[in-house]
């Protein structure tokens, strides 16, 4: 059996006295797209941030490719080949698209960012057209492309995406998810996707986990979870699919 690229083992985390995650365990195998779905405040983003080192887990272990990264500083974790497109995209509004992308290459250990830049442009040709434009003037969908592109600049082994569909029109969401699938199929990039848009996310992902109040309540393949009546009721709205 291959070692998981990411293993979260019985992790608990809290903000001060507020317990945000309790005993969360999940695995992401190399080349997989895994999605984590759940309602607002379930702890999805907290889990992503805990994987990135802030907040530090109170208990449990996090392993990246079999090596423990629990409690390591964020910038060191990122240098090990993890990249994140944070919640709310958080692009640099006054910097140009090109500068935004180059900021993503800061954690790149090998010097030249050109091959990464080319990869991003193949994936999102729109960004190439907008290269000199300020990040803040892009549309929401373009900003999300930029956030993902920026994360790809560090040549990651594991890409963490925090709600890429947030606030985007359905057509744009389909475009973004299509790009994620394409990326996974062509380069074998491993993706951990946090989403509220359970329907689309489960269709895209190989496997999924459901997080409720800081605990994993269900796990399975995307198709399995989509078929579960509880999921349909809680996250998909009955009748729609």
């Amino acid at each position, binding site marked *: 059996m291959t070692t998981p690229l990411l293993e979260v083992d019985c992790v608990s985390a809290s903000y001060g006295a507020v317990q945000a995650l309790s005993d969360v365990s999940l695995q992401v195998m190399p080349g997989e797209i895994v999605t984590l779905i759940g309602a607002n405040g379930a702890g999805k983003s907290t889990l992503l941030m805990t994987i*990135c080192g*802030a907040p530090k887990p109170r208990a449990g272990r996090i392993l990246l490719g079999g090596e423990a990264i629990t409690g390591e*500083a*964020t*910038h060191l*974790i*990122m*240098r090990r080949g*993890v*990249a*994140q*497109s*944070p919640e709310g995209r*958080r*692009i*640099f*509004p*006054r*910097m*140009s698209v*090109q*500068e935004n992308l*180059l*900021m*993503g290459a*800061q*954690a790149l250990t090998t010097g030249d960012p050109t091959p990464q830049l080319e990869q991003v442009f193949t994936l999102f040709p729109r960004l190439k057209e907008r*290269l*000199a*434009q*300020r990040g803040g003037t892009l549309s929401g969908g373009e900003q999300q492309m930029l956030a993902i592109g*920026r*994360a790809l600049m*560090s040549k990651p082994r594991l890409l963490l995406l925090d709600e890429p569909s947030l606030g985007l029109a359905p057509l744009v969401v389909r475009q973004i998810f299509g790009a994620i699938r394409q990326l996974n199929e062509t380069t074998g990039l491993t993706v951990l996707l946090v989403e509220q848009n359970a329907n689309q996310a489960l269709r895209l992902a190989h496997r999924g986990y459901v997080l409720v109040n800081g605990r994993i309540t269900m796990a399975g393949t995307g198709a399995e979870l989509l078929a579960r009546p509880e999921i349909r009721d809680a996250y998909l709205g009955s009748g729609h699919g």
Partner: protein
Amino acid sequence: MKPASALPAALKDALIAAAVSAAIFIPLVALRTDVGPTGALTLRTRWPEAALLVGLVFLGRLALVLWTGRRGLRASTAPGPWTQRLQQAGRLAAPAFLALALVLPAIPGVDRYWLDLGILVLTYVMLGWGLNIVVGLAGLLDLGYVAFYAVGAYSYALLAQEFGLSFWVCLPLAGLFAAFWGVLLGFPVLRLRGDYLAIVTLAFGEIIRVVLINWVSLTGGPNGISGIPRPSFFGLPFSMAGGEGTFAGFFGLEPSPSHRVIFLYYLILGLALLTNWVTIRLRRQPLGRAWEALREDEIACRALGINVTTTKLSAFALGAMFGGFAGAFFATRQAFVSPESFTFIESAIILAIVVLGGLGSQIGVAVAALVLIGGTEVFRDLQEWRMLVFGGAMVLIMVLRPRGLVGTRTPSIALGKKRAIGGDLVGEGRG
């Protein structure tokens, strides 16, 4: 807008402005207390003066509203017509400024007074550029920048006096000490932002000043340090004696007091240009880009694997170092330092230069320093009204250009040309 409806609206607007000004001028101007011969306070009223001021405000506001429409002066954050022109002219303006600065001492009619003014302005340009690294690029609001200026000045004063070290040895040391204090300030404030950061840096500036006042055995306390060695031209002193081994003697020139002033002028020009050059270079490096990204969004920086700690500390250290250089220059120019030169108002002026110039803009900072420092010198004849002009200029700039004189940001890298961009004022979106 139809003129018929414009007039009543303008009258109403002007009346409101007059009422506000009355609320200010009645206690400030109309009522005045004087100390009588017995030491008792007597109240004197000056109603005509107050009425005149209120009337002026009324008329001024009325004229303004009628002239520009209901909204009064329009603020613009977008590149306005004249910034765009400035940006286009920037290609020429920056080299033109530089050329003027270089030949200033040689221009006929430029006497000692103008050179001294030039030195003063350039000192503030350098301080503005130094603080620009911290506030403009890294976005860390620093209200205690003068502390590093003081550290540099006292470092030079003490090293030169106690150990007899030359200016050129002391200069890097002064920068190093200031950078050290920059890091020292940086550590406790790593997690602070905005207002909270401003308060701590303000306190830091005061701490340095209070220490300078009270550590009498080292700093001479409020009396300061006098008789600081003047700079020499790489070992050749400037002396009126004009003998062998002095600057004038060595080059076979007529001894003149202006030699030293010209030397000081070029010295500060060189130091300021060094600051500018380092900043421009760094903006195109990963470190400089990380500073700007930090200003934009700290959380995103963390998510991208940027070491926020070292990035912040490097900004504090580098900004402080240039402050220290400027301080050493100040000490050698004045030959006297005292804590009085390093009060909070100095920090405020330097910050005002950076903010008015446009955070992060090199040319904007230089223009703002010229306007604020040079301007107040030129208006010296106005005496106490000078500060009114100073304040008025600041208000006007902020009303018209809330983002500073040069509010637009030039990307540090442009499409196609990669790292080899020639001019530093390439217009936005153009290669």
